[in-house]
């Protein structure tokens, strides 16, 4: 048996650590590329969203590289995600991969215990101690990666030489991936933290702050959004986002069952405009706008084309009395990079002017 999983950002690194610790045979599909997208778009039903198309492409490429068991998230999330596996399994069959099985990993139903049980089954009944320690190690890698990403988001806006932060990030990802045990991982973390700190910075700049929010997958998979965070960074903008896989895992698997809900604040903020969960991240998107309208200069709302929850959210957002510019970007296989960059430049110009007028207005009052 050979396990694989579709890509989402750098999520393969913690899973690789998990599989290695448990001594499971695995293969990581080739990095998401234009070929992945073409394969996905070719074999998917036309009306489907880009997360489906990209994960389908990944799954096909994983099957080509010899995987026979593919982990794929599923669950009752009101969006199409829960139905993905049904169709993807058929797509694989139609392509002749008859012995490849897609295993659903619960993201909403039986959560942690289900995930543990699935892994235990796949890991030839490894002992619970091994499984939990492997999980812990995987989670630490996940945290380390997200930490590096946060630093990158901050440094891109203020670095003197464009691209320095990206180089450090690439090195950090490599070091985290290579770390074999806790000690090496800690060393890698210390190492990249120091490197981020030593990046030469511009003096006296107060960068614009743009929040990134929207649908989980397109926010976290740089390929699907043309690495929008990097593009914003090039324009001298500091990017902030609340969606991180490590945060999501922490809450979804560990704290939510105990009754702690990090999203409750977002939901409460959204509730004057949207009272109930509409699936995907629709509720949270409205909440982000309401909650962050003072902290951020603007928001970029990422949504896959034909994503129902985000369409509802983008219909509701203009009516909130909390006022902050929102740029909705729809991601699909037809999207062009030049068009996106032009829109981002116009948006950033607008935000800069808005901040200037605000600043001048408050000056005049004094």
């Amino acid at each position, binding site marked *: 048996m050979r396990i694989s999983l579709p890509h989402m950002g750098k999520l393969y690194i913690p899973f690789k650590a998990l599989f290695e610790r448990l001594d499971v045979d695995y293969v990581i599909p080739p990095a998401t590329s234009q070929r992945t997208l073409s394969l996905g778009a070719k074999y998917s039903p*036309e009306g489907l969203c880009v997360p489906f198309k990209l994960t389908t492409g990944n799954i096909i490429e994983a099957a080509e590289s010899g995987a026979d068991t593919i982990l794929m998230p599923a669950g009752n999330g009101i969006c*199409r995600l829960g139905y993905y596996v*049904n169709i993807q399994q058929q797509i694989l069959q139609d392509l002749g991969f008859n012995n490849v099985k897609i295993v659903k990993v619960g993201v909403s139903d039986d959560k942690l215990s289900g995930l543990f049980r699935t892994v235990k089954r796949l890991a030839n009944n490894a002992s619970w101690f091994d499984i939990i320690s492997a999980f812990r190690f995987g989670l630490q890698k996940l945290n380390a990666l997200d930490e590096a990403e946060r630093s990158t988001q901050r440094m891109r806006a203020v670095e003197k030489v464009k691209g320095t932060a990206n180089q450090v990030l690439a090195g950090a990802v490599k070091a985290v991936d290579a770390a074999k045990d806790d000690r090496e991982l800690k060393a890698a973390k210390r190492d990249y933290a120091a490197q981020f700190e030593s990046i030469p910075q511009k003096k006296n700049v107060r960068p614009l702050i743009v929040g990134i929010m929207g649908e989980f997958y397109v926010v976290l998979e740089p390929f699907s959004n043309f690495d929008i965070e990097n593009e914003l960074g090039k324009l001298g903008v500091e990017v902030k986002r609340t969606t991180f896989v490590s945060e999501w895992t922490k809450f979804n698997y560990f704290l939510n069952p105990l009754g702690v809900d990090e999203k409750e604040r977002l939901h409460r903020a959204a509730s004057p405009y949207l009272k*109930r969960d509409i699936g995907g991240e629709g509720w949270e998107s409205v909440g982000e706008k309401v909650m962050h309208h003072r902290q951020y200069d603007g928001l970029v709302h990422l949504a896959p084309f034909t*994503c129902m929850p985000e*369409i*509802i959210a*983008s219909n*509701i957002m203009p009516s909130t009395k909390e006022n902050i510019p929102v740029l909705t970007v729809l991601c699909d296989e037809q999207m062009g990079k030049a068009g996106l960059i032009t829109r981002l430049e116009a948006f950033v110009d607008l935000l800069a002017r808005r901040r200037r007028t605000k600043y001048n207005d408050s000056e005049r009052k004094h």
Partner: protein
Amino acid sequence: MKKIGLPRALLYYQYWPMWQVFFEALGAEGVVSRPTTPVMLAAGSSRVVADTCLPAKVFLGHVLSLVDRCDYVFIPAVRSTRKNVINCSKFLGLPDMTRAVIPECPPILDVDIDIGKGKSQLYREIYRLGRHFTRDPLRIRRAATAAWQSYHEHRDRMVSKQLTLSQVMDETKKPAHVATARATIALIGHPYLLYDEYVNHRLVHRLEQAGCRVVTSEMLAPSALSSAVTRLVGKPYWTYEDEIVGAGEHYLGNKVDGVIGITAFGCGPDSLMMDMVRRQAARLKSVPFMSLTLEEHTAEAGLVTRLEAFTDMLHRRKKES
């Protein structure tokens, strides 16, 4: 008497007898919007972002046409009609979205229908809805029971007499005679697409004119539908999976001459469910299947040409066999 606006769109086609009876029993009057017109659709789509799906735009058009005609608009948020299934987000976001994009809308009566949360929660929601009209819980209970019964009578009638919804709503429309029909065609799709004559360019009428008998998911007993769903996909995932996957699987294996699947462009659940049916049709290779996608720009001529080609093919196929 309080007037309750009932937009003739989306779930209205499924539940209108239930809603009418419920509000009448509580001493209110249900005001139904007129059938969809181009003006309604244009008004509805002018309020929302372009990506919003066609049925939702139609719905908002209907709400706009009701703005001056009623005291309340009834917009339920239906999450599930049985355990462990979920519904498309547009149904859940509908009350809030309407409020956001139509600020001039009269107060919205929203009610959360979620069987997954248990019966007591459902009863509480119905009571909350009834409270707008009376404080007498028994009266609300009676109204709800009567509504429930009328819904089932309506469903049973469609199954036993094999009627399409337009035939039930308008008694003058007679079903095409089975004996004279040249072919039987199953239409698979949500009722709000099959029976909105503006949106689908009078599809049912056209098929009947071409000498075809039309059968739909409403003519099948719920048990037949759910067993068909189980056969094809196992546990249902969507609330209205019966209408697509159930009816599709049933008719593909049951002596109809052709199956036409109707979806709206960009419909999330349908993009997957219709694909399930399409794949099953391709696997069985017994019944021809055609899928039609409707959107605002669907041209009538194009639709008619495709229908003609499909029915011609069916007739030829029948003659040959």
